[in-house]
């Protein structure tokens, strides 16, 4: 285990108890996540992607196997693992700024520092000018940006994103991808992201995990470096033959 190892999952399996029967959602998962990894997880619907993320987040305990975070077993959610869901779960009774300040405030940081942090990340997502609005006055894309800033504000060791752009339209999605890419590069974050969109995974991830259908296990891992080959201005991928070949290979894997 290197010093930069953040998550270490071994022989993980998760069962859901439904009425009388047990449903195995994921099985035989071995996975380590290192600092500065940008992992994108692909797989057919219902294969257990969210289940895996929830185990890492600490929302669900493993049924079998183990999960360690920086050497310590994960026993529940905490601020070290930030989470962003598909639909921004921003608190509507707090302003944009209060949402972002929530984590640092809970941590008990001094007021000045809390507000400094919030300002920093609001700036990074380009929403400092709407900091006093309630979240429901923002567009869907803006809301996801705030959710991102809220998770970043805690400076967690790893960021877990569950289809963060799934509810956005195609154009907004491209802009969000560009933003996440920039942030990841600037902040040197570690990111674990679930997506349905192969292009998105290719455009962002350094490691692409493909899961089998239920009960899900990781059937392939691809290393990708297209994220470095994205048009800096538009955020669009410069497609080439190599890209298309990889894309085709992944689609064939998922599309059963």
């Amino acid at each position, binding site marked *: 285990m290197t010093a930069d190892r953040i998550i270490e999952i071994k022989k993980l399996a998760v069962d859901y108890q439904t009425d009388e029967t047990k449903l195995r959602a994921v099985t035989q998962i071995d996975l380590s996540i290192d600092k500065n990894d940008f992992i994108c997880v692909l797989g057919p619907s219902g294969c257990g992607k969210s289940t895996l993320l929830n185990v890492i*987040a*600490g*929302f669900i305990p493993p049924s079998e196997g183990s999960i360690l975070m920086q050497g310590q077993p994960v026993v*529940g*959610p*905490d*601020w070290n*693992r*930030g*989470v*962003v*869901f598909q*639909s921004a*779960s921003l*608190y*509507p*009774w707090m302003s944009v700024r209060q949402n972002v300040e*929530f*984590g640092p405030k*809970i*941590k008990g940081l001094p007021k000045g520092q809390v507000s400094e942090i919030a300002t920093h990340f609001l700036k990074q997502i380009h929403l400092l000018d709407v900091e006093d609005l*309630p979240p*429901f006055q923002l567009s869907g894309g803006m809301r996801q940006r705030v*959710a991102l800033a*809220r*998770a970043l504000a*805690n400076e967690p060791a790893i960021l*877990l994103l569950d289809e963060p752009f799934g509810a956005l339209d195609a154009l907004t999605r491209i802009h969000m991808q560009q933003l996440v890419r920039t942030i990841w590069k600037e902040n040197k974050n570690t990111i674990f992201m679930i997506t349905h969109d192969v292009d998105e995974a290719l455009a962002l991830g350094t490691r692409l995990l493909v899961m089998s259908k239920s009960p899900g296990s990781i059937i392939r891992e691809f290393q990708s470096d297209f994220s470095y080959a994205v048009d800096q201005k538009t955020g669009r991928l410069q497609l080439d033959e190599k890209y298309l070949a990889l894309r085709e290979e992944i689609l064939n894997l998922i599309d059963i």
Partner: protein
Amino acid sequence: MKEGKNHRRLTIVTWLVIFLVWYVITEFGLVSHLIIPSPKEVLNTFVDIVKNGYNGIPFWKHLGISLLRLFLASGLAIVTAVPLGLLSGYFKKVGAIVDSIVQFYRPLPPLAYYIVLILWLGIGESSKVTLLFLAAFAPIYIACVSAVKNIQLEYLLSAQSLGAKGKDLFYRIVVPACLPDIFTSIRTAVGVAYTTLVSAEMIAATSGVGWMVLDASRYLKSSVIFVGIIVMGITGVLIDLGLRTIENKIIFWKGYQ
């Protein structure tokens, strides 16, 4: 909008027609004034009661004492039912203890247990306020339990991932997330308590608009009954309007959950 205006006009016309029918059938003696007093009689009675009071007590005192009972009871219900309901929803064990008791007494007609309250608490204000309190308690409690159960799971999970737990989680996330439902239930509860007002003022009272109507019906003073009903109707509508205004101020995010 123009359509809205037209509809308001239609509403006004409706009430004018009601008043006209009322006027006509009483004016031309189509019914005994014992059964329906004329609008004039009712107006005169109203003026008289406002000026001279009823049964030696000023009208404003009658209304005041009724509203005092109502607000006292509703206040008590809020202060107790909200925490208990939220706890019942949050900790399943508390729910297992309290739920079935509330479910059992909730459908009971207040008049059925009023006598028990009187035997236990006496005929003073406490039994009256308790009756209204019990009427108001159940709707708030039940709404709070279900509000907690229906909180968007993402609110709780993301708060936990931001480091919130225990008290922080409860006061900063659970309580505000439930506030819209709580407020709706408070409006319901005050309404339910209001419809119980006359029952509460039935026994050993000598003041309150509810009592006034009851007393008037004992002596078949139809015009006083009508005054009482109209005053109660308008007051009821105004109370709800007031609560709704407060709700819109406090729960500014309502409907955007």
